[in-house]
């Protein structure tokens, strides 16, 4: 097994899926000869040619909309939004169209499109290259929103997304792209959409999170282990629709739950997680369900002290776990 970075796992999944199924193609801004601004599509243009690796005009609604048309036809488009922040012009196509096509046609038409977008902060990207955008889409039945935390899951989930019969929004944390590496099997495998994953088992406090914060939570948990605090970590992986079963089990297990997101708190998807716990585990709780999130500002600023202040990190998580453990 080779050690791959998070972005190499994206790239490998694309290569393999395009090899296996000639209905799979990619489209987006700069995905062709340049290989994408983060090199997610590196090598695809040379291998599969310009008819399957399409540099589009600078128009996100068209990238999504043309992809949706091709998906209805029967293709398996993988559309790239250059930054998740720039998905906003495509919201109408994604929500009004992709998410509703099966339902509105009473199962006659379907829309198996995958829309990839790099999200998240910590890369000096400022307000418009750092955002967490999942909450905008996490209320739309018909759509799935996947946010993997580690290279292994990236490869397996991206393959599942491309093979899924329904539209999948696949959000990749851009700070994780080169930061996170691990062994990733060369062979074909998938990771199921809709299933959360226990990334670490523990007894004192349950941390439920997703994306880069899983990495931070692991670091925090390791440190706390030395202090004798045992942390369970749930990686949501699919943030919409949520895996209620795993959430309920893990929350009930320790009775102390910390929810973590890089997004600003109010209206973020961890509110829904909290509500699920509240509905189902009230009498198992030993402490209020605690949420740790970004501040209530529109997006992350550029200047280093401000970005740092906004960003989630292992220390913040460590402190919150400790507080809960001591509650």
């Amino acid at each position: 097994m080779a050690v791959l970075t998070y972005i190499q796992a994206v790239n490998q999944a694309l290569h393999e899926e395009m090899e296996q199924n000639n209905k799979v193609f990619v489209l987006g801004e700069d995905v062709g000869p340049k290989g994408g601004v983060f090199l997610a599509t590196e090598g695809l243009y040379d291998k599969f040619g310009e008819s399957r690796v399409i540099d589009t005009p600078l128009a996100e609604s068209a990238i999504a909309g043309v992809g949706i048309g091709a998906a209805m036809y029967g293709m398996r488009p993988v559309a790239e939004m250059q930054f998740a922040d720039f998905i906003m012009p495509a919201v109408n196509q994604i929500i009004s169209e992709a998410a509703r096509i099966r339902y509105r046609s009473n199962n006659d038409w379907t829309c198996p499109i995958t829309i990839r977008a790099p999200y998240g902060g910590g890369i000096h990207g400022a307000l418009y290259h750092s955002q967490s955008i999942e909450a905008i889409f996490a209320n739309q039945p018909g759509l799935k929103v996947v946010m993997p935390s580690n290279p292994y899951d990236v490869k397996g989930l991206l393959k599942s997304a491309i093979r899924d019969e329904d539209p999948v929004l696949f959000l990749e944390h851009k700070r994780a792209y080169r930061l996170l590496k691990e062994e990733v099997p060369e062979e074909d495998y998938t990771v199921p959409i809709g299933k959360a994953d226990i990334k670490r088992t523990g007894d004192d406090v349950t941390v439920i999170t997703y994306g880069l914060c899983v990495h931070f939570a692991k670091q925090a948990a390791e440190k706390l282990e030395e202090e004798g605090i045992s942390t369970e970590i749930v990686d949501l992986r699919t943030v919409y629709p949520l895996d209620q079963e795993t959430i309920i089990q893990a929350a009930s297990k320790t009775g102390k739950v910390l929810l973590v997101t890089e997004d600003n708190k109010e209206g973020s998807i961890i509110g829904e997680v909290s509500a699920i716990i509240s509905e189902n585990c009230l009498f198992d709780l030993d402490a209020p369900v605690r949420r740790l999130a970004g501040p209530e500002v529109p997006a992350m600023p550029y200047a280093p002290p401000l970005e740092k202040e906004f960003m989630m990190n292992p220390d913040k998580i460590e402190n919150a776990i400790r507080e809960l453990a001591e509650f």
Partner: protein
Amino acid sequence: MVNQTYSLETDKDTLVNMYREMLLARRIDERMWLLNRSGNIPFVVSCQGQEVMQIAASFALNKEHDYILPYYRDVGIVLHFGMTTREIFLQAYAKAEDPNSGGRQMPGHFGQKKNKLVTGSSPVTTQVPHATGFALAAKMENKPSVAFVTMGEGSTNQGDFHEGINFAAVHKLPVIFMVENNKYAISVPYAKQVACENISDRAIGYGIKGIKVDGNDAFAVYGAVKEAHNRALNGEGPTLIEAVSYRLTPHSSDDDDSSYRSKDEVTSEKAKDGIEKFKNYLVDKGFLKDEDMEKLEAELKKEINDATEYAENAPYADASTLTNYVYGHKEEN
């Protein structure tokens, strides 16, 4: 009219069939209004004034290969491509058997996969990039399919019009964009929607062919769409067609058009009705006799009566089906 594969003017059967379809669309629409005004169906959005362009365009397309992305006024188009009168009434009544959506969507939201009629929604113009996507897929798969998409002239001001056509133009895709210019977007007249003389002039800004035709003239529309279809099949890329007529009814059964346009204007436009014009042509040519007309009207009436009755008596989808078909089969990896 270049590269026409057969001469429309002399093929009697085709012409009479075209007339039949136009008239059927009109009669269906008229019945809808009656049913609405009598309280039998809650909503109608009308094709009246646009049947000629719809049918003429349809005849220039290929039923076997082409993908059709209609908008809510396209009763004529969906009829031509295989939706039955009964099915049209089933969707007007929103009954379970409605092939478009099983009664989930409002009337006029067409879609029927077996006839390559692509499902549509209410937000206008989203179908334009979809058509480009169908054309892209057909091209990738080397299929002789053309995507044909329609929209109102008001809808050409949405960003998706611009983005969808530009994409198709850059990639020289086999797609025909037909604007059904009926001079109003609900209450907003042409002059408050755009400042350009012709919607078809927008083609220039995409580097594609643009054609403007009288939408009440079946031959002109047929010729333009045929030319566009040939261009598409020959790898010459998309065409933007503007067909001009007039919306003879209020915007929908919920609209009162007297607040924004005069009766006189409507009356004078009614006089230009293309169906009448087309009929007169057939009569002049001797293709249609008085007795044919009577027979035809009687046939259509029976077809519409039967369809109405069937749809009226058909059941609604059961409330228990509400949550069906949100997602397909679960991922099983």
